[in-house]
């Protein structure tokens, strides 16, 4: 069975703080893909990153960074120097053998 767990339901930070969103996944497949999506208040799903199971390199994109660790089945997402525009619901997702399985999401509120 495949599963994605985002234990943090809601996080509230003050602007310029760093924040890490946790994602733990379960799968028996050796080939799989992990994703992060952002859903701003407007409702659309915005793709942030895709990582395959063979690439454990961390990735940085501007203020965003991702830490993939197969040993702990985690794919955590860090926002450095958060901004109000980062306020959204963030979803972690896992794809293996055809289905994209989502976590329940973490609602991030960044206050000025």
């Amino acid at each position, binding site marked *: 069975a495949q599963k994605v767990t985002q234990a943090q339901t809601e996080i509230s930070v003050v602007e310029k703080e760093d924040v890490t969103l946790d994602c733990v996944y379960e799968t028996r497949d050796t080939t799989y893909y992990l994703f992060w999506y952002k859903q701003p208040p407007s409702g659309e799903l915005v793709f942030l990153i895709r990582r395959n199971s063979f690439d454990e390199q961390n990735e940085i994109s501007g203020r965003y960074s991702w830490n993939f660790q197969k040993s702990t089945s985690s794919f955590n997402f860090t926002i450095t120097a958060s901004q109000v525009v980062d306020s959204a619901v963030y979803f972690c997702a896992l794809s293996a053998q055809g289905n994209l399985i989502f976590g*329940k999401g973490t609602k991030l509120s960044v206050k000025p």
Partner: protein
Amino acid sequence: DAGITQSPRHKVTETGTPVTLRCHQTENHRYMYWYRQDPGHGLRLIHYSYGVKDTDKGEVSDGYSVSRSKTEDFLLTLESATSSQTSVYFCAISESLTGLYGYTFGSGTRLTVV
């Protein structure tokens, strides 16, 4: 131009009436998906299609049917809408079943069953 569009964007319907949501793509992707999003549940897969006339059930398929008569269109039908089907529905497309090329999502359809 968006490669995937959903219609309608919003709909209010009465309990017991049939409802059809449409997903249209211009990317010629083989795989299409319908998800529903509910508070506290994230997005859950309803049905997916791996080709014309080829569909399969997802996690929450009860009460829903789908059809795909053309590559570009994937229809989701609620035969007799219930209040529990009030939700936001997202369509997605992909080139690969494994996620190799990622997924593209539509803008969503907000359905309210009263």
